[in-house]
């Protein structure tokens, strides 16, 4: 598979959230504003790419029987690094994301890429795969969180874009809004891909 194709796969045809629908917990919980969505997306890109690189580099040394625990430790190590870095340099974001930063460990997309891709492919391909999947995740987070911030607050990145007279739709930033908007978004993606294939 050529490099560009690997990258494109992650962003579009195998988008982790909109197509594969894995790692939903954080997606639903922290997308109340665009800045949180971007922060989470970048954190996931870092962990996913890092763990993909290390796992593909060690794939010949990790015995098959204990590969899952080995993956989990590598992923947990990267998550801890990100956790400490965000604690030190982006404290406001760290507080907004809260428990969902350590929970990157159990984000299924990372373990799934380790098992399905990094354990079977070379370092360069795995890096590209990690970046592609990570960017796909980030794109979905940006879509969902900007819709929620605009509807629920009338702002984007804290800047007001809808007129003062706009009555914010509280539901959009409350928990039900997360489920309903993501549901509609996935429905829309299904519609697009069905139209393309028809």
């Amino acid at each position, binding site marked *: 598979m050529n490099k560009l194709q690997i990258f494109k796969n992650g962003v579009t045809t195998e988008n982790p959230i909109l197509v594969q629908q894995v790692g939903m917990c954080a997606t639903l919980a922290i997308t109340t504003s665009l800045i949180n969505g971007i922060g989470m997306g970048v954190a996931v890109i870092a962990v996913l790419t890092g763990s993909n690189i290390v796992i593909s580099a060690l794939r010949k040394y990790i015995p098959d029987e204990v590969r899952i625990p080995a993956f989990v430790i590598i992923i947990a190590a990267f998550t801890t690094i990100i956790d400490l870095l965000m604690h030190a340099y982006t404290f406001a974001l760290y507080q907004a994301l809260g428990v969902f930063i350590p929970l990157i460990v159990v984000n299924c997309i990372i373990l799934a890429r380790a098992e399905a891709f990094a354990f079977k492919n070379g370092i360069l391909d795995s890096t590209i795969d990690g970046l592609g999947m990570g960017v796909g995740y980030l794109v979905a987070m940006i879509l969902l969180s900007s819709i929620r911030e605009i509807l629920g607050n009338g702002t984007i990145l804290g800047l007001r874009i809808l007129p003062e007279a706009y009555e914010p739709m509280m539901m959009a930033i409350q928990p039900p809004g997360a489920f309903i908007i993501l*549901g509609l978004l996935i429905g829309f993606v299904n519609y697009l891909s069905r139209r393309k294939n028809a």
Partner: protein
Amino acid sequence: MELVSLFITSFIVNNIIFMQFLGTCPFLGVSKKIDTAAGMGIAVIFVITLASIITYIVHHAILVPLELEYLQTIVFILIIAALVQFVEMFLKKSAPGLYQALGIFLPLITTNCAVLGVAINNIIYEYSFVKSLVYSVGTSSGFLLAIVLFAGVRDKVDYADLPESLKGSAISLITAGLMSVAFLGFSGLQL
């Protein structure tokens, strides 16, 4: 009284699925039938409660005295993974009936973020041992409630005449959203 209120809050008011979004993956994945949903829910109660007890003890008896709190994530996920393995082996040997019922759900629970989430929340909220026990049981019972209710609703949704594009997970998420509206009604409830 404080404990009862903590239980109600974690069970319904701050429902783990509808308000905190922890454990959404198994919630969406294993809710096609009411029996399997109930099996998953009971397995989750069992594992969350055990995991909270053990992680609580490890955190306060080992990590804090050695000033190793930053290793929390790694240590907790290893404890949970090992615990799930042990529970599986133990049940297989000593309670084959229960193992038959819960067996297939157990491996899935390791990657259920509800387990790690509750263990970490116990530490973040600085709960005492008894409080964290009540919080774990309350939260995981909330998971059982949510997944069984959701499985019941999904049973009916399957027969509905839906637009082709909304079939599958899209309508599941929208359904969960509407149920979440109902749970929003409990917010602010004080005992």
